[in-house]
């Protein structure tokens, strides 16, 4: 009887996260996945309030593979990592780049997508007249990427650029463009899209797949993708699912499920459905 009591108390403490290493490593039966719900086409909220998009479909697919019951919820971008840490949910799938800085605080699965970031501007602006390019630059290859950044800086001099707050995109623009452009920070990308259309800002900078989805809307017919896409370096290894460092079992399960989804072409199929290109990471 006494032993049972102790077991119950230990289990209770484990759940509170005080001594929770043994319990946390057991395979979970049900998990909660958080997304932002405001970053179409990766994750967004439909008119009737449901979550949908590439990551929502992928999350459901991974859960089926892992035979785990999943609940998908929406959470403000800025609150994602703090809420994960205090245990409000177990996994982040919100188009979050795996970066060294974030790895100090939380852990990530292997990337399930790699997607370059770039600018969108008005077609009749100096940069817009150059048109979009399918070139991709790796930020860590300084020789080539520095030249590309210099060229963009020249064309964007004195312009106002909108970027979502607390993102790697913002860090990138701050690091390489802060001395030539005015940076405005938005809570969601939907908000900087609105301001681009209203003419309050001259350019926006985010993932090119998200830009393409925005530019496909009729009110953005006079805007275009511009300049090359950037990957690597500051942008890290790609987009992965974030989880707590102690949830090692869950990480292995997710990695195995992502492997399977890459191998059987599911990620390719889902990504072509939602973002029109294949963002499957190349191993």
């Amino acid at each position: 009887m006494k032993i049972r009591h102790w077991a119950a108390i230990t289990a209770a403490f484990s759940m509170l996260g005080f001594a929770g290493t043994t319990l946390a490593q057991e395979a979970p039966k049900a998990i909660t996945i958080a997304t932002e719900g405001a970053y179409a086409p990766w994750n967004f909220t439909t008119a009737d309030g449901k979550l949908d998009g590439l990551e929502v479909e992928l999350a459901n697919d991974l859960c089926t593979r892992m035979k785990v019951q999943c609940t998908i919820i929406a959470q403000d971008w800025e609150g994602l990592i703090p809420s994960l840490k205090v245990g409000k949910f177990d996994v982040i799938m919100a188009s979050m780049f795996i970066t060294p800085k974030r790895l100090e605080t939380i852990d990530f699965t292997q990337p399930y997508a790699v997607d370059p970031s770039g600018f969108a501007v008005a077609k009749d602006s100096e940069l817009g007249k150059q048109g979009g390019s399918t070139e991709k630059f790796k930020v860590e290859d300084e020789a080539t990427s520095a030249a590309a950044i210099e060229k963009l800086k020249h064309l964007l001099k004195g312009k106002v650029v909108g970027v979502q707050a607390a993102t790697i995109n913002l860090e990138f623009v701050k690091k390489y463009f802060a001395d030539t452009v005015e940076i405005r920070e938005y809570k969601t990308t939907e908000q900087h899209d609105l301001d681009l259309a209203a003419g309050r800002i001259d350019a926006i900078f985010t993932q090119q797949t998200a830009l393409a989805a925005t530019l496909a809307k009729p009110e953005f017919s006079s805007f275009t993708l511009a300049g090359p896409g950037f990957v690597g370096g500051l942008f890290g290894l790609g987009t992965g699912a974030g989880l707590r460092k102690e949830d090692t079992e869950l990480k292995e399960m997710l990695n195995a499920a992502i492997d399977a989804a890459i191998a059987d072409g599911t990620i390719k199929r889902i990504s072509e459905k939602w973002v029109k290109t294949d963002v499957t990471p190349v191993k």
Partner: protein
Amino acid sequence: MIDFAFFLEIIPTLLSGLPMTVQLAAASISIGFVMALLLALAQQGNHRFVSWPIRTFVAVFRGTPLLVQIFLIYYGLGQFRPSLQDMGLWWLFREPYWCAIIALSLNTAAYGSEILRGAIKGVPHGLVEAATAFGMSRALTLRLVVLPLALRQAIPSYSNEIILMIKGTSLASIITLMEVTGIAQGLISQTYRAVEVFVAAGAIYLAINFTIISALNALEIWLTPYRARA
């Protein structure tokens, strides 16, 4: 758990947002006060065509959240750029700074006008009659008798409104203005230490509001020495 070295590190960063917070608060409280006074006086005449639009304005701005008002004035009006350009007002609504000041001023004008309307109504009618008996004109009575008494009477409830406005400026970060709260959120996204950052930001607001409360208390005691708290 609380790390004091970290506090000292983030306070200067947070204070870099203080000028924006103070500017937004000072501009909107001043503009709002002038508007509130005009709106309160305009309602004294009891002309239906004057008071109904004012009452509607007050009801709308007191009945909706400030957050919604800021969103509507910034993102909402942003969709009507061509019409605003025709009216020559786009330069004003283009800038998040002016949009924030407009939203905050209109909001505080609505609340302030009710405070002042009540305070003016609270001036004993006998005093106005006495002034008229002395042969003072209506304007002179207003300037020398009614307003000084009403404004003095309004200080405690108006100081509440001022404090609410200072806290209201924290919403300006949703339209890209980097005041104290906006900078705090940026710091959290870099450090993931929400408790320390928000405690420090809260302390800054507390310090501003404590200063203002003390100043307004001193003003009230100076104007009404017989009512000073023991």
